[in-house]
């Protein structure tokens, strides 16, 4: 685990690092955040308060954080992986016992100046520890059962705690993110095939058991599933979010109703219009063209991440960058599926666009790591 193998001499030092930053990626992030400011300005009825202005400050802070993280050599971060994971786990446990309850779920610790969501930290820490683990693990052991069990434990530990909060969205992100890390690291296909087969049979069992004595879920959980499958069955209740969101999205048409002309968001029909459902406002006001443009920006970010990951000969850097990119992808995939009615409503924000501090900090720190890997890659 030594970093001596890096050709340290060729890495830039001091402020020269700034020149080696992946500037296109930084610009893309800023562009996406800019879309967020625009939409927050619009949903506030053409006002910087209460959302656009704080969001801008947060982004600037996040950008500075990204630069700071990027300046620090990637090998330092690799050495910090275990510590980060341990700290995140402790904080998750702390939240279990001392955390505040918000929106029916225990999620954050109030630090006075900010609210810390350990589950957000865990998103990065888990990627780091898995990247470090597979960096350390010799290639020939990757698919051995014992060495497969270790990362599975690393993933399931936080997932269990997060599910208990309960925060289904983060649990899905951690589980999928971790799984993808294992996949990328080269774990044998057979494991994934087995997990997928098990998943399918579990879903089948859940549905088949409904109404029988050995029913696997509570009735209200089945109703939630029903509502997801057919939101119109409960248009004013649980289906309200999905129905209104789809109406907003669909009514945008090709070019949308125009900036600040979205009736669904302006008249409050949209729930959570500034957080999880902000994409619907964009789609309503800028239409298909606007929505696809944002999707294009996201795709470019992913492309740049994958490109820098593949051009990096350091295994840790490569895995870490791919992991961050996957987390970012999962954010946007789950959120967009949700607002388009393709997935049930779980609380996952649209990355860099939705109003909210925690997710943005975590993502900017993540991109800081990506930048650090980019700057300090072996040349």
């Amino acid at each position, binding site marked *: 685990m030594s970093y001596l193998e890096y050709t340290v001499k060729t890495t830039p030092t001091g402020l020269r690092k700034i020149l080696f930053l992946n500037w296109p990626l930084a610009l893309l992030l800023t562009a996406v955040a800019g879309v967020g400011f625009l939409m927050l300005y619009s949903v506030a009825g053409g006002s910087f308060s209460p959302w656009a202005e704080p969001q801008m400050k947060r982004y600037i802070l996040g950008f500075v954080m990204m630069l700071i993280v990027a300046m620090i050599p990637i090998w330092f971060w690799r050495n910090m992986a275990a510590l980060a994971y341990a700290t995140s786990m402790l904080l998750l446990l702390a939240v279990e016992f001392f955390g505040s309850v918000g929106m029916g779920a225990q999620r954050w610790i109030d630090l006075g100046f900010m609210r810390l969501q350990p589950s957000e930290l865990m998103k990065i820490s888990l990627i780091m520890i898995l990247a470090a683990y597979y960096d350390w693990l010799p290639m020939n052991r990757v698919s051995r059962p014992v060495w497969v069990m270790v990362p599975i434990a690393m993933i399931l530990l936080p997932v269990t705690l997060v599910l208990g909060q309960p925060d289904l969205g983060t649990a899905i992100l951690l589980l999928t993110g971790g799984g993808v890390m294992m996949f990328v690291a080269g774990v044998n296909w057979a494991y994934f095939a087995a997990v997928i087969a098990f998943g399918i049979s579990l879903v089948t069992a859940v549905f088949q058991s409904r109404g029988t004595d050995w029913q696997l879920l509570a009735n209200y959980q089945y109703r939630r599933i029903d509502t997801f499958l057919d939101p119109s069955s409960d248009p004013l209740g649980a289906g309200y979010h999905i129905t209104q969101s789809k109406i907003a999205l669909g009514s945008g048409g090709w070019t949308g109703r125009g900036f600040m002309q979205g009736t669904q968001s302006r008249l409050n*029909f949209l729930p959570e219009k500034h957080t999880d459902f902000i994409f619907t406002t964009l789609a309503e006001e800028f239409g*298909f063209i606007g929505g696809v443009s944002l999707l294009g920006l996201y795709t470019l970010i992913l492309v740049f991440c994958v490109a820098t990951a593949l051009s990096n000969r350091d*295994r840790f850097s490569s*895995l870490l960058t*791919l992991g961050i990119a996957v987390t970012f992808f999962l954010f946007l995939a789950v959120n967009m*599926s949700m607002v*388009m009615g393709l997935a049930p409503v779980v609380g996952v924000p649209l990355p860099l666009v939705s109003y909210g501090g925690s997710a943005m900090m975590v993502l900017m720190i993540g991109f800081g790591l990506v930048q650090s890997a980019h700057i300090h890659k072996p040349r």
Partner: protein
Amino acid sequence: MKRLPRDNADSLRRITRRALILGGAQAAFIGVLGLRMRFMQVEQADQFRLLAEENRIKIRLIPPARGRIFDRNGAVVAENVPSYRITMVREEAGDVDAVIARLAKLVELDPDELDRARRDLQDLRGDTPVTVADRVSWGDISRVAANTPALPGVTPEVGLSRRYPRGADYAHLVGYVGPVSERDLERIDAPDQLLLIPRFQIGKIGLEAQREDVLRGTAGNKRIEVNASGRVIRELDRREGQAGADMQITIDNELQSYAHARLAEDSAAAVVMDCETGDLLACASSPSFDPNLFVRGISVNEYKSLLDNKYRPLPNKAVQGIYPPGSTFKMVTALAALEAGLVDPSETVYCPGHLEVSGRRFHCWKRGGHGNVDLHQSLRNSCDVYYYEMALRIGIENISDMARRLGLGLEHDLPLTSVAAGLTPTKDWKLINKSQSWVIGDSVNAAIGQGFVLTSPLQLAIMTARLATNRSVTPRLIKSIDGVEQPNGHGDELGLSENNLREVRKAMHAVSNNRRGTAYSSRIIEDAFRMAGKTGTSQVRNITAAERARGVTRNSDLPWERRDHALFVNFAPFDAPKIAVAVVVEHGGGGSTAAAPVARDITLQALYGEDPPLSAYPAKDRGRIQSQQERLRRARPTRDGDGSDRA
């Protein structure tokens, strides 16, 4: 541990391979998202846009202004005045009790109304405006408006409310409006959307109810933009409705007021009809009530006192009340006999004071009898025996036929609530309804307007008009709708022999002009306005043999509800009949004393169009008439209507 370069290279190759597979999967998913977006925003855009419009746009009805009602001279009978009310929306109010408490400091709130409002605020949907105070003053409204920041969810609103400036004068004819009730809605098959507006007012009785179709108008609507909690953001557009049509009725405000005042505290009805057109110039039912009470929402106590009043103020006695016509029916019997050719006007019948018919003795009102009477004398003196004899000659079918020709016993088409048909009995009718066969005594009773015969004051006025004109005059109440003149009731030739009618009219003239006539004391002195009439006194009880033996009990000794009804019908002027009048005073005693003076006064008032000169009255009555005129002038509403200060 030193990593082998080969291991590292292998590993990186595998990572690259897996990363590309992952990238492909991500790209595929993003492609799916894009396609989904395209499907929703391009293919299904119209459908979703429609849903969005439905979300945001609500259609609110604009209640139309109700058609106004004017009298024949264009004076206001029913109008719409702005009324202010305070409404409250629960969702916007938040703490309802606190807001009401604050409101109560500004405006006096009626406890009953407040209780109802609290219930509604609790039960109805949270975004429904509930009326907290109705008919508040402009001052209250401006105080509330000035304090809106402290009163969330409270809105001062202005609407139109019905007002009847003539008060009790038109309670029975025009009726009143009131809020739509559950019962109203059940009655109507396909209710107008308007009726679903809370507290929308519709006609409840009388003209207001019968011509609701014309008066209501059609709803306009406005499209408003609302937000998710139903708060109105702005009005997008509005389409004004069609106001209800204004209506002019045939009644003369002044004459109607006079009739009401003249009937005063009696339980009575009077109808004045234009002989030429059938126009009802006055149609009074006494006692009356203030219809404005019902518009405002009558209190339980007020309503109970109206119900408990033994003079029954609520029904319209002029068209709903049916009474035995008594001697006013004698013209019918006389004409029936004359037309049948079974009696000659000059033929005399001997009246000994009674007539034996199949073992039963029928008495004349004059115990000593009238001696020999011909047709003229029989009407002038109202001899009963003469008509008993006629009944025996011509039979009930002839009498009832003639009664129907003269407008009795059938329901006239008037836009009023429960217009009574009355009854002109026939043998079949008795067989079907009483399961008894007709006996000759029934005919004898019917001949003098007793027994089964029942008529309304309206029908008596029609009968008199037809006698005066020999045309089938029919009543008209609505003169014009929206400026369009309605067909009048001039009527076709009745086809009665003019000679026969002349005999009857001459006899009626004698009733109120010959010193031996039963209504001589109520004569008109003014030659141009001489009237021809007939008194009637109809029994509402059987006189027992014991009573007869003691001498007929005087009406004033009987309890009110057992006294005779007093009736009088007349037309005037005799030479060129213009108006026909019928007056019924329930349990008033004798027709000549209780009804004839009233009919005479109303007739003069109608003919002069104002308080008549004292010279029109018999000299010895003038002093009394003068003080009566003064008293009545004070009792009547002023010409331009009072009550403008009534809220």
